[in-house]
């Protein structure tokens, strides 16, 4: 069967199945289990209404349980076993991780990523949102900044590989260096410690657009009266921006910040394609990849460590997002 036909059949079965389930389940509830007739139709109707939400929630809950809860529990369980999965070793995988210098490097680098990337993306996004709001070609500038969002991480890495190329004819950085009169090209990907920041630049480049779009919407939502009042009070533009506007969108900033933080903790593509974890740039997700399908016990242990780190950020993120909605 051609993939197109296959896709269409899948969509038909999927959508039809959903509609069919809700329709049939509803019908079954109303006509067969609790029919609004018999001795006490009123009680049956209220019973049916009590059951109905669970009926409609059931598929989603089953899917979440199967694809989210079960894997989390299953991964943790797997991380307590050895490489073959045959013998129980308790927290052995975790103690091995703690003893592995490569894991510590990955953890340290990940900490840098979490500190730098969300902060830089949110800050640059905020600045871009404010600066592009009042100018005529602001929308064009915005689309340019937003465009990297549409590029996959691997695609972006390939583009930046050219920027960082170790040849003045190809690499932008080395071309600038050559223009300034430096003779030997440098391989920025191999500079100890700083190479991690060159990799971060790629993700910041991608995520700034996301921060800008969300924050731009939030900035527009600020009541004009507050700004007018500030102008009348004689505040300068910097004071208006940092003292009046930013405090009013703190909630949105936190949501953007935490969303990017969660993303940072799971992006392995950039390190994976740019350096493969070499030259001291390893981070936790790519460290996990080096064990995946080889030593699943160790890999799931890393996955669980990542989850423990993400969890508080995620809780904060959800709490903030809910506060925003109210």
């Amino acid at each position, binding site marked *: 069967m051609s993939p197109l036909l296959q896709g269409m059949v899948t969509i038909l079965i999927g959508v039809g199945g959903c509609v069919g389930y809700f329709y049939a389940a509803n019908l079954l509830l109303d006509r067969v289990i609790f029919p609004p007739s018999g001795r006490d139709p009123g009680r049956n109707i209220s019973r049916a209404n009590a059951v109905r939400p669970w009926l409609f929630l059931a598929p989603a809950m089953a899917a979440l349980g199967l694809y989210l809860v079960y894997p989390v529990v299953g991964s943790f369980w797997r991380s307590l076993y050895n490489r073959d999965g045959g013998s129980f070793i308790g927290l052995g995988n975790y103690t091995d991780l703690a003893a*592995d210098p490569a894991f510590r490097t990955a953890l340290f680098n990940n900490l840098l990523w979490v500190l730098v990337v969300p902060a830089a993306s949110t800050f640059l996004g905020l600045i871009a949102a404010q600066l592009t709001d009042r100018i005529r070609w602001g929308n064009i500038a915005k689309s340019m900044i937003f465009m990297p969002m549409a590029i996959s991480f691997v695609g972006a890495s390939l583009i930046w590989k050219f920027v960082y190329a170790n040849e003045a004819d190809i690499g932008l950085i080395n071309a600038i260096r050559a223009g300034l009169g430096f003779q030997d090209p440098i*391989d920025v990907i191999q500079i100890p410690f700083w190479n991690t920041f060159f990799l971060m630049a790629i993700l910041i480049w991608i995520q700034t657009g996301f921060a800008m779009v969300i924050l731009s919407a939030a900035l527009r939502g600020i009541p004009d009266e507050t700004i007018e009042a500030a102008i009348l009070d004689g505040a300068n533009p910097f004071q208006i921006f940092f003292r009046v506007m930013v405090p009013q969108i703190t909630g949105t900033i936190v949501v953007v910040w935490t969303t990017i933080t969660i993303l940072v903790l799971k992006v392995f593509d950039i390190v*994976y394609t740019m350096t*493969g974890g*070499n*030259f001291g740039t390893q981070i936790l997700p790519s460290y996990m990849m080096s064990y995946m399908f080889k030593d699943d*016990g160790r890999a799931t242990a890393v996955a669980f460590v990542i989850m423990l780190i993400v969890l508080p950020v995620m809780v904060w993120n959800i709490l903030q997002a809910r506060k925003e909605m109210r």
Partner: protein
Amino acid sequence: MQLIRMAGATAAALALFAGTAGAQALKFTPGEDARFSWDSYEAFADSHDLSGQILDISGVWIGPDKDLVESVLAYFEAATGARVRYSGSDSFEQDIVIAAQAGSAPNIAVFPQPGLAADMARRGFLTPLGPETADWVRENYAAGDSWVDLGTYADEGGTEALYGFFYKVDVKSLVWYAPDAFAEAGYEIPGTLEDLKALTERIADDGGTPWCIGLGSGAATGWPATDWVEDLMLRREPPETYDAWVSHQIPFDDPAVVGAIEAYGWFARNDAFVEGGSQAVATTDFRESPAGLFSFPPGCYMHRQASFIDTYFPAGTEIGLDVDFFYFPASAERDLGTPVLGAGTLWAITRDSEAAHAFIDFLKTPIAHEVWMAQSGFLTPFTGASPEAYATDSMRAQGEILTSATTFRFDGSDLMPGEVGADAFWKGMVDYTTGRKDAETAAHDIEQRWSSIR
């Protein structure tokens, strides 16, 4: 529901078509071309009649490779009357384990490397090929003992037997060079490892760059260096040491291993010996690294890489004219014969049947090798197959390296546990090449990783 049933029926019909597509016409008409050993084909056809039987084969080959393997299988079908159903999958290594556990394994599985086959043998999923097949391989394959050892594994009870029959092999011990550049500078093809080192020094003294080396390969960055180390290991130490290293009977930081790493470093860590200097080695993509051979003046004179690298040569490159290769020479000081590093596919019986055993017998006929030799991408250590059958001179020359080998060893990093052979070893070699670690530290760190496996 009607729709689902209809879709199911279509899929079944399509599967039926795919199954019969294997029965294609024979590529070379039997008896016509004198390059082929047709008498072996006829003798096999006369002694085997499997009419009505079905033989299922699973392997890694898809696309054009699938057509190639099916062109060989067609001769088995024509000779025996059996029907062969080949199915290729790029996730073969996962699929075959699942199929074996579920009891739905094919009759024959084509493994891309011995590790998985050894694992399946240990779990009792493979059928031994019998001592007569082992004797046959020992006698008819160059470096026969190596091939028997590579296909011999222990079963559930620990009894060792031959399970894997090697068919279709790749050679890695090749050094590519530009014949014109060599002729112009008056360089000669080195016959020994010592000559190769002397030539390297001479080219550097003449102001040229002897080597192009590139380790870059995305997430797999570093693997070309592991091939270097393995090749040098075979030229410095007896094959038993190599086997002990690969199976972790000696630690990774054993002096023999550190010595081989340093022998690689002699070439790669000298800025005068490699194009772009040793720092560039780690990030130059392996696919782009041979480019120096084709530039003028030459960016480099030699490039050590397996036979597949010709795919990445500039379009229109003619092997033998624009670029050629020689055997990565053995050491004259150490009497270790002519070792060859490579890889290959091994065929094993995953579900016993008369046709499966007949098929292994078919692989022992010269014609089974010659039909693929006459096409592309196939080398064989079988000395009974006629070298004239090779489609090109370069394939013939590579086949000759294989048939004149005294020792054959499988790519060691493929035999080590994944997190070592396909991660720690790669990264360790990158750290060593760039000078972040010395050979001892790099080897020690890899050993740490290996010994921490539970």
